[in-house]
């Protein structure tokens, strides 16, 4: 029969009974209503078991009906570990239980429970390691057994995004306190954001019963909700979980597929309380639930939670539960009252008047189940704290509601820095030490709807000789496990957690922290306050990686000529965020060879837009460069270019480029593609320290650039120039000129990185494509072609020029690079000078040398292959390749300083251990007298 447990339509606040919904659970079809969650719809159909527990595979059903416990984790398509008591049903939804083999009802894995004696706390630390190495085999077995839901590796997230939000006051939780707080804040004129995880406003007013008269809660709810909805400056977000509260009221809110990042002027946390379980034997069987869970089932979902109920009362709220059960037509077997003092609450009086059997100063000692559902409980009198009498009374019931205590929903408050204190009188935790701008209101602050705090029962914990009193349902931990952990020396609550895994499961100790703190306190003879609980960390409620990642924004940098490279068939390589053309064509080897040859014999065009550019301006510009780079710049003539080598405080080479003196007080400095941001930051920091009269600007993205290089470069370029005379006399090597090329305002630098006559033309970013086109057209007759980064690397290698980061590492000094020529000796100071002076006074360990391989059949030395002498390590290759110009293998390598003399043989261990003999040669490999920099006559 469908929906046998469904109550009359006076119950079920969230249901739309006009809209039946069919869905599947474990392959069988069920009917529910729009507004049902998976768990409530299944409960309506008398289907209670939702999952099997982590360790012992015990059948589990909803404990809270509030999406707070791990019992309800089920599998649906696209969402393993889905909370069945939070997820709404939808037509055709296919739901499966988790963590069983065979069927949910008959789990072949449940044998584990029979061996629980041998699987006590930390059992795995004390077995499975003999003989040595055997754990690796056991680990494989345990891995197969571990885990809950199954992740579908074909899943791809779609439609997740993020939104920034701002408000004056964020109110978290729309129960009575939250609604009132929002109204108060709004009345003061604040823009208020009211956030609640449920589909409707009202919080506990949706299910609680604060007095005997059932109408009071509903009336209060309607009154407050109507006012809130009518208030202009309150924005309401339902179905939204406030998951994190980071420094300065920076909140993460998860709502459907969106992560809202909210900066709130003030936060008022009205998160309420989380009801806590009692501990007795088999307190985990389906049919045992929180009193508030039964109330939620009845009032929000119109589901009768059982036929015959027993209510375990440790506080007055229990009597509200009893009244609600009676209203729902549930037979009350008895109220078992933990307390021995008479209760004067109006609800208790009403229950007494109804003739319900009340057993005082007693507890449920154990529960028994039949067919996976509670069948009866054994009740015993309490003789002292946690101790029961000998006389059992067995009471048949299929529902046991626990109302014994609460824990404030403290997570967000503790994330932001609040502390939990325990008060022995009320047996409750309270929150203190909150930062300015973060406040609590309502039951989370110990202030309840009817004004009276509801004290917890101080010890609803009853150990059973046969055990199975579950402290932590996620991890299947019993009282003995916690006590044993402390006996074994793990006394600090954090150690108890780590050794026993208590609180490490999906519900993060929501229902175990209080009991664990009490048990540990007693076992270690400390107070609960001293014992405390473990740290609350974000998120409050599990959130998907899809939510945190959002749309995933990875910016890509493309130069202004990018499209031209694509058209020319470029293959790109990544350099930081840049796409740079590696080579043009399909075959890398032949393309690179041809591009190199082209530059050597005629002319080629290289996109150098990714180079960094920094303007250094002001009266102290030269002094600034003198301090920041190793070379001397004060006497550098305007219109010239000088090499710029940068070392850090340790004297290590960190960047290089050129400094172009455009005028007395203006330099344009280039930096490496990947280094420029770091270099600029470093310059800013030093400039701030030095108080020089200098102004800096990183103009890397304002300029694009090309290097036109090769013997015919000037010939191709000259016709395009306006105001720039390329003749040797007017524009010598290492000169810089301003003017126009192809009508574009440019800076032209005559530099020789690739070892041939070349001009770097730096132009405004948006002119790149026009510049490229003009040069390609002008060079057509000369056979100009685009040249990629790979060819550029070979060209510079032939010339013996280094690349920072490839030929240097984090300890490279200029001396090791044989670049002492780039250090100005007479300067009193530059960054790294002191360290370099110390280095210079010590024997040098290694030197970067050029090498060539004479044997054409030898194995190819690759970058990072080691230079060895037998087993002795002499150094490593940093650059290598086949030089098209010289037609042999050449490269750069670090070697012991004893082995750096030209002519020395060295052995390079290549792939598969093949040894290649190379010879140290004098750098550069190509054009040692720099004659290629002369303009062809």
């Amino acid at each position, binding site marked *: 029969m469908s929906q046998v447990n469904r109550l009359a339509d006076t119950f079920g606040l969230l249901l739309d009974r006009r809209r039946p919904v069919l869905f599947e659970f474990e392959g069988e079809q069920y009917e529910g209503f729009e507004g049902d969650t998976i768990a409530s719809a299944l409960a309506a159909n008398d289907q209670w078991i939702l999952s099997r527990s982590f360790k012992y595979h015990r059948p589990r059903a909803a404990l809270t009906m509030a999406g707070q416990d791990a019992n309800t984790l089920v599998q649906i398509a696209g969402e393993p570990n889905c909370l069945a008591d939070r997820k709404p049903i939808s037509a055709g939804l296919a739901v499966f239980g988790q963590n069983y083999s065979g069927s949910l009802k008959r789990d072949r894995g449940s044998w584990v429970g029979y061996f629980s004696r041998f699987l006590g706390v930390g059992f795995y630390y*004390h077995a499975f390691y003999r003989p040595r190495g055997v754990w*690796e085999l056991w680990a494989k077995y345990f891995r197969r057994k571990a885990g809950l*839901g199954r992740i579908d590796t074909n899943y791809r997230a779609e439609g997740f995004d993020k939104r920034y939000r701002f408000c004056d006051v964020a109110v978290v939780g729309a129960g009575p306190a939250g609604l009132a707080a929002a109204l108060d804040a709004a009345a003061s004129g604040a823009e208020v954001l009211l956030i609640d995880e449920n589909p409707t406003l009202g919080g506990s007013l949706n299910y609680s019963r604060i007095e005997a008269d059932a109408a009071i809660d509903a009336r209060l709810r309607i009154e407050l909700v109507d006012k809130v909805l009518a208030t202009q400056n309150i924005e309401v977000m339902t179905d939204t979980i406030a998951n994190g509260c980071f420094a300065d009221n920076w909140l993460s809110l998860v709502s459907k597929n969106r992560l809202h990042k909210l900066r709130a002027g003030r936060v008022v946390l009205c998160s309420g309380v989380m009801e806590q379980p009692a501990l007795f034997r088999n307190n985990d069987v389906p049919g045992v639930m929180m009193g508030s869970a039964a109330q939620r089932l009845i009032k929000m979902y119109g589901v009768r939670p059982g036929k015959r109920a027993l209510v375990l009362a440790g506080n007055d709220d229990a009597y509200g539960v009893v009244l609600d059960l009676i209203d729902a037509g549930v037979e009350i077997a008895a109220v078992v009252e933990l307390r021995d003092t008479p209760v004067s609450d109006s609800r208790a009086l009403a229950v007494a008047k109804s003739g319900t059997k009340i057993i005082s100063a007693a507890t449920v000692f154990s529960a028994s189940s039949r067919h996976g559902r509670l069948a009866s409980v054994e009740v015993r009198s309490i003789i002292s704290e946690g101790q029961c009498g000998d006389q059992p009374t067995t009471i048949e019931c299929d529902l046991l509601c626990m109302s014994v205590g609460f824990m404030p929903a403290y997570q967000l408050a503790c994330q932001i820095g609040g502390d939990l204190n325990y008060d022995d009188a009320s047996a409750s935790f309270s929150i203190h030490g909150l930062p300015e701008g973060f406040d609590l209101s309502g039951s989370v602050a110990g202030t309840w709807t009817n004004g009276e705090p509801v004290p917890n029962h101080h010890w609803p914990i009853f150990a059973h000789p046969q055990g199975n009193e579950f402290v932590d349902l996620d991890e299947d931990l019993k009282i003995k496990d916690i006590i044993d952990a402390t006996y074994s020396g793990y006394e600090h609550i954090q150690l108890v957690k780590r050794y026993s895994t208590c609180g490490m499961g999906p519900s993060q100790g929501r229902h175990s922290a209080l009991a664990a703190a009490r048990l540990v306190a007693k076992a270690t003879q400390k107070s609960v306050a001293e014992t405390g609980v473990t740290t609350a960390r*974000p*998120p409050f409620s599990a959130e998907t*990686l899809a939510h945190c*990642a959002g749309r995933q924004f990875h910016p890509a940098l493309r130069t202004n000529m990018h499209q031209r490279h694509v058209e020319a068939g470029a293959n790109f390589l*990544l350099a930081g965020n840049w796409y740079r053309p590696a080579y043009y064509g399909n075959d890398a080897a032949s393309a690179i060879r041809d591009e190199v040859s082209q530059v050597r014999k005629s002319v080629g065009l290289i996109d150098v837009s990714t180079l960094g550019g920094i303007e250094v301006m002001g009266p102290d510009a030269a002094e600034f460069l003198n301090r920041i780079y190793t070379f001397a710049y004060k006497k550098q003539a305007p219109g010239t270019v000088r090499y710029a080598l940068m070392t850090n405080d340790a004297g290590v080479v960190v960047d290089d480029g050129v400094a172009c003196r455009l005028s007395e007080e203006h330099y344009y400095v280039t930096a490496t593609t990947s280094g420029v941001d770091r270099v600029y930051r470093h310059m800013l920091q030093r400039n701030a320290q030095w108080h020089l009269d200098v102004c800096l600007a990183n103009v890397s993205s304002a300029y694009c650039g090309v290097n036109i290089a090769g013997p015919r470069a000037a010939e191709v370029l000259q016709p395009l120039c306006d105001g720039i005379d390329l003749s040797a006399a007017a524009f010598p090597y290492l000169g810089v000129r301003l003017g126009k090329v192809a009508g574009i305002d440019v800076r032209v630098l005559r530099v020789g990185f690739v070892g041939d006559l070349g001009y770097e033309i730096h132009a405004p970013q948006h002119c790149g494509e026009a510049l490229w086109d003009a040069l390609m057209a002008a060079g057509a007759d000369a056979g100009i072609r685009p040249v990629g980064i790979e060819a550029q690397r070979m060209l510079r290698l032939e010339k013996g020029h280094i690349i920072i980061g490839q030929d240097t590492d984090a300890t490279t000094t200029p001396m090791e690079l044989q670049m002492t020529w780039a250090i100005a000796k007479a300067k009193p100071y530059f960054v790294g000078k002191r360290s370099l002076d110390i280095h210079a006074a*010590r024997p040098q360990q290694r030197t970067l040398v050029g090498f060539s391989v004479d044997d054409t059949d030898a194995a190819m030395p690759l970058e990072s292959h080691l230079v060895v002498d037998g087993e002795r390590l002499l150094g490593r290759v940093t650059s290598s390749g086949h030089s098209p110009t010289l037609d042999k293998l050449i490269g750069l390598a670090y070697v012991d300083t004893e082995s750096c003399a030209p002519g020395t043989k060295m052995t390079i261990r290549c792939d598969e251990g093949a040894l290649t003999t190379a010879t140290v040669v004098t750098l550069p490999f190509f054009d040692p007298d720099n004659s290629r920099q002369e303009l062809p006559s």
Partner: protein
Amino acid sequence: MPFDLIKNGLRSASARKPHFSSARDLKKHYDVVIIGAGGHGAAIAYYLAKYHGITDVAVLDKAYLGGGNTARNTAVIRSNYLTEEGIKFYRDSLSLFANLSNEFSYNVMFEQRGQLTLAHSDAAIRNFRWRAEMNSHFGVRSRLLDRAEIRELVPSLSMNESARFPIVGGLWHADGATARHDAVVWGYMRGACERGVELHQLTEVQGIDISDGAVQSVQTNRGRVGCKIAVQAVAGCSSLLAQMAGIRLPIKTFPLQAMVTQPYKPLLVPLVSSPHLHVYVQQTSRGEFVIGGGSDDYPLYNTRSTLEQKESLADGTLELFPFLAQAKILRQWAGITDMTPDYSPIMGPSPIKNYYLDAGWGTWGFKATPICGQTMAQLIATGVTPDLIRPFDLERFYRFQALDETGATAASH
């Protein structure tokens, strides 16, 4: 069922001895005071007691056993470093790890699953080849993998060539392993306590008394404790403690964040990291995915988490494993890393006589626990620095002999 399991199951709890000495009064004087009861402090105590017969030892901690970075690290054990000194040091650590369970009679769950580091650029390939060559030279198993080999090794990894940062290769470190990090410190401390070492938790060192250039005693919240020798092993606040002894350490301290998902059925065996995406991912034997690698941009002594790091870790993870979009984050936390300029630790003597340093552990402290404990104990017992750790002394920064491991971190800083 293993015999040990039956034996433990049949023995009553009260018959079991506590693993650690329980709270008692501090003595006036100890031969050795170890400041910090993390993995390193416990290991030093263990090796002092076991191999050098020095048992008049107190291990002090301001909080609880193993509660600092021992509790917070992501339990990656590897030796694929870059320098000769680093490789040898971590290599020996790894081989000690492999035998710990049996040495302790306490299962630390050491599992050699292998570690894969991913390259997304040719610069990374050059770096990986360097590491592979250096590692192989010193007997550590590392080799370069191409895309096909990676696909075979980790079929679930996204090898999309049109991704923003496509995977171009990898460094496979077959020796890479993991272990239960807490169990390591517990095993060491239990072994030390069995031999007479005292563990004093909630005992905070607040001052260090020095006269004639030598350490005399430490001041704690529970009074002054004299000692012949003191050693600091307090990763995360090394410079603060050293400052009490008047020693300045070249350390900058940053939080490093990590997070863990709910448990899922197993689908990933090796430890996978991408320095470029600032993320490393592994699935624990409980089924949770542990995701780490987010170092904060600015120095801080605070273990708070930030939303930005979580977003960045999630983003990097989904680039590698897009299906993990549906995995749910359970918890996010931070450890405090003491970063040295060369990303190598500082071990050895200090300018103060009889005061030893075990510091600068950045993100590589857990994996060094056994070998650091063993060699530091030898140094304390004999006064002679073992060759293996001699290059790691504080003086190296003044000698300009940095041990550069900046290119060998799994996370980038």
